[in-house]
């Protein structure tokens, strides 16, 4: 009984953490797919989302709005955070990446690193160096499943993350803009010849990816109860590892990779010394890449070097 409850609990934890990594990894993979750039500033977008979530949530709570209209205020918090970070993503793409589209990939990579350093220090200066507490809005209520306690907060977050991923899949597979995005990722020049506005498509990617990262940021803030200017770094590189693990550029791969990294990390933390848990993502990554150099679901082969 005990072990069963423990297992269920760990599975829930893994699902939660995996969803977070998957959401962040999607941003890396989409951007990589379309402009072959590792967007190092993505971890900072996650943090920015978390901060904006905190700001909006705090304001709503002071107005007493959260108690009266819980669902609506959740919606507002996520929407505002995602919108803000989408703006941030578009701005960064325009300033730091667009001028480098024809330059070497290393230049663009350094530009991204510069943006990452700039943003994390900017947030440190504007929001402070120390942990900032998130209002505990998710509550402690929950249900018991097979002896394990699952809070409503966990259910809400996992459900919302899954909904976002399903939505993204539908968007990419079914809508015109989504198909344009895939076409641009696969062959940019041809997409242009067919009348697809490349700049607009890339900008769309920089709306969606960062917005998903922002959602993950708000979720982490609500779940763990605090935000910090540098909290994006570790989840950022783990999510990046997840994206590579799944096969970078591959959207399904990012989800699979995220879940896998989340799962391994939870298992490790449950049974092995937890101060080493940050190593697990990399060990899994290196092992998988050693045996499958193109990731689990294979890499989208882009021969054309831009």
């Amino acid at each position, binding site marked *: 009984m005990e072990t069963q409850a423990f297992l269920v609990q760990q599975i829930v934890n893994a699902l939660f953490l995996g969803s977070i990594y998957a959401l962040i990894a999607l941003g890396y993979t989409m951007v990589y797919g379309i402009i072959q750039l590792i967007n190092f500033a993505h971890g900072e977008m996650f943090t920015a989302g978390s901060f904006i979530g905190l700001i909006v949530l705090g304001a709503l709570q002071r107005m007493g709005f959260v108690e009266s209209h819980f669902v609506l205020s959740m919606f507002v918090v996520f929407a505002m955070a995602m919108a803000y970070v989408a703006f941030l993503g578009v701005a960064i793409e325009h300033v730091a990446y667009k001028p480098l589209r024809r330059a070497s990939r290393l230049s663009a990579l350094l530009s991204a690193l510069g943006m990452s350093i700039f943003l994390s220090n900017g947030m440190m200066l504007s929001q402070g160096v120390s942990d900032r507490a998130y209002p505990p809005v998710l509550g402690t209520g929950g249900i018991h499943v097979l002896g394990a306690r699952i809070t409503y907060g966990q259910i809400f977050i996992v459900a919302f993350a899954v909904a976002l991923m399903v939505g993204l899949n539908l968007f990419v597979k079914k809508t015109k803009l989504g198909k344009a995005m895939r076409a641009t990722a696969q*062959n940019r020049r041809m997409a242009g*010849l067919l009348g697809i506005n490349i700049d607009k498509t890339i900008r769309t990617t920089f709306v969606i990816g960062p917005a998903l990262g922002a959602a993950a940021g708000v979720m982490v803030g609500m779940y763990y109860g605090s935000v910090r200017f540098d909290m994006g770094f570790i989840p950022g590189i783990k999510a990046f590892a997840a994206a590579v693990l799944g096969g970078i550029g591959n959207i399904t791969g990012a989800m699979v990779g995220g879940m896998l990294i989340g799962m391994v990390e939870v298992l490790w933390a449950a049974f092995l010394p937890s101060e080493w848990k940050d190593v697990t993502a990399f060990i899994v990554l290196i092992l998988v890449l050693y045996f499958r150099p193109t990731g689990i679901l294979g890499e*989208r082969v882009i021969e054309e070097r831009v």
Partner: protein
Amino acid sequence: MNENGPAKAVLQLNEVHTYYGRIHALKGISCRIPSGGIVCLIGANGAGKSTTLMTICGVQPAAKGEILFEGRPIHRMRPEQIASLGISQVPEGRQIFPLMTTLENLEMGAYLRKDRDGIKRDLEKVYSLFPVLKERRNQLGGTLSGGEQQMLAIARALMSRPRLLLLDEPSLGLAPLLVERIFDTIQEINRAGTPIFLVEQNAQMALSISGWGYVMETGRIVLADRARALLEDEQVKKAYLGE
């Protein structure tokens, strides 16, 4: 050079220069495509034929000179704007979207169109032109054979209902029988009213279906004449027809 090009042009290039960085790829190209006709452009490897097409489509914009499409200057426009005017290109090497199905590839061809019924009808039309594409409609583009990909590339270009079709070496790497079929199809498309600008290595074949031909060498047009006259031209025979 024969300056009396064909009359009433859909497309006209005047003294067009294009650079890749500092490499001067087009050094003052002038040519005309008549409405309703087939014009071909032949020349050795690296002459700048593909560059000419990419310049027309705005992918590698002209640095100097002008390009008029139906009388409108288009040389300052971006590729998607030019595409929306009705210029459609089947680029060198097919450029199929490898991770999209045949059907999705065809849909991308109709990206700029809003008329759903028209798209559906055109889909049936290209399927009847290339029945094999219908069989393969749910197969990923990257897994099609070379010939199927070439057909798909042409079909995709047709899906936009082009007012001008640019073809870059449609016969490259295809079996002789298939080459003939592709050329038949090109003529069929042209008979239905679409003017065609055809770039080819297979000069014999290209000239035989064209009304007018241009010969290009290292960034310049060195010969322009009726296709029939070019077929008889001693220089052309020696250099491009292998006689």
